[in-house]
């Protein structure tokens, strides 16, 4: 049975947990600021940037992408947490379908990422990036696309993890490489050829690229973006659809 009530309560639970876990809240707020103001300041003096843009500004879309990446992965890994601490069973024996659970986790992960991305976005005037209402709304839309894509991917991975020990492996071999190869810290075409291929299959690249389209648009000119905006959106859509399908399928099969 597909239940909207159940989806609602799963989302509420994740939000309550998020705001109750002080440490997580603190890390979530401070991590992107550390990157922007410390890494940004350090690397800024070394990196040659395209005209009219400072390194701190260049970092902003990438750091928004990173925040969404970490937050979405962490949210979806909470399934493993729930499994380890038994709470997942409470949901699995309830008269709701597995798809309901996946949808609840997907929505809560997406919403939490979106909240964090938005908070960060509000810092953009401080970095000298102009934020109009249209841009803000466009960013909300694109950020939710990216959040859905990454959360769905995380859920698919989480369905295979039976213990939290796997989390570090995922962080090291999937999440961090995704971040480094996404064009968040340096333009993708500056990468050696082999690595460049990896950034082409990385969903985060398309999310960050889409953000650049909105934040760095200067008349008809876009600074820093490497793909067409429609391609970015298309890839995120297809990736999300595939991952939601896989995650639901694998939860139906294995619980």
């Amino acid at each position: 049975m597909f239940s909207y009530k159940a989806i609602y309560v799963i989302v509420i639970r994740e939000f309550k947990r998020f705001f109750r876990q002080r440490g997580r809240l603190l890390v979530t707020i401070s991590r992107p600021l550390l990157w922007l103001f410390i890494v940004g300041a350090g690397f800024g003096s070394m990196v040659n940037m395209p005209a009219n843009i400072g390194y701190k500004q260049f970092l902003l879309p990438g750091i928004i992408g990173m925040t969404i990446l970490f937050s979405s992965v962490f949210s979806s890994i909470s399934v493993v947490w729930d499994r380890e601490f038994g709470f997942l069973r409470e949901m699995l024996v309830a008269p709701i379908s597995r798809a309901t659970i996946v949808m609840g986790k997907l929505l809560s992960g997406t919403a939490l990422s979106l909240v964090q991305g938005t908070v960060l976005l509000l810092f953009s005037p401080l970095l000298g990036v102009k934020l109009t209402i249209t841009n803000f709304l466009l960013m909300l839309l694109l950020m939710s696309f990216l959040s859905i894509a990454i959360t769905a991917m995380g859920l698919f991975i989480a369905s295979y993890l039976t213990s939290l020990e796997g989390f570090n492996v995922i962080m090291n071999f999937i999440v961090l490489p995704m971040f480094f190869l996404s064009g968040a810290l340096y333009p993708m075409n500056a990468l050696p050829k082999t690595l460049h291929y990896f950034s082409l299959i990385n969903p985060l690249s398309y999310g960050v690229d889409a953000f650049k389209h909105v934040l760095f648009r200067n008349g008809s000119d876009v600074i820093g973006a490497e793909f067409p905006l429609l391609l970015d959106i298309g890839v995120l859509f297809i990736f999300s659809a595939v991952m939601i399908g896989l995650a639901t399928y694998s939860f139906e099969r294995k619980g």
Partner: protein
Amino acid sequence: MSVIQVTNLVKKYNGLTAVNGISFEVKKGESFGFLGPNGAGKTTTINILCTLLSQTSGSAEVNGYDCLKQPPQVRSSIGLVFQDITLDNDLTAYENLKFHCYLYNMDKRKAEERIEYILNVVGLYDRKDDLVRKFSGGMKRRLEIARGLLHNPKVLFLDEPTLGLDPQTRTTVWEFINNWRKKEGITVFLTTHYMDEAEVCDRIAIIDHGRIIACGTPEELKKIIRGDTVYLKTADDSSAISELKETFGIKAAKLHDSISFNVESGDKFIPKIFEGLKTAIVSVNLKKPTLDDVFIHLTGREIREENNHKAGELLKMRRRKG
């Protein structure tokens, strides 16, 4: 009317047979105990009945619904308390219950009334806004049982509900379950390896190696053993066993640190042992039949063999340290 109906149920995991063709039924309003050692197939059976696992063959029905074909109906009819705690530590007691009501699609007003009522019954109303993290093991257990009963299930499944609780808390938990059962007339299905818990069930199935080896009321099961059980501690158990066989034609079972056998009237037989046995006797104990003895009689083993063994090892370690 039977509320649980299991026929020739088989569950195999990668070549290992956890449940090996069991059949039983549980009547409405009954308390039915599944008694057996760890790994006997108790939890596997419960998991099939609550639709968390699908069987290899055979059929299982709960409240008239097929566990394999109608999981949502089965799930709405049952309440569950698992072996390990399945509460969310970061939510309050009240929030945990509320979450449950939403999952079971309860009407909001009804849910609130029911939560308040049930929290009072389990004596946790004063603590309803505390995080579950702060609760003791016994409180968590009571809260879980309360949660299992929130949506008015027809059957309450309890998988080792008092595992790891101290004796006093075990008693309160049981009092609560039994009072509730009488009041609401629901069926209780429980698994346990505590004999005293099985003793208070209306009917018991003894399960070992995935098979039901006996099923009936505690009284019926105790009748399997004719007479009394005599426990002997001797200087040499194996020679005592063979002597008993030769002299009296009695088949004795070897236990952890003693041997046991059944005779018609134990009090009259004991003097004979002292006369007839050459092996030195350290101590003698006479017992009227219990479910423990039934289990030993049927399997030749003690039900908590592993636990005794572990306790023995602990003792040894302590001795070494001391």
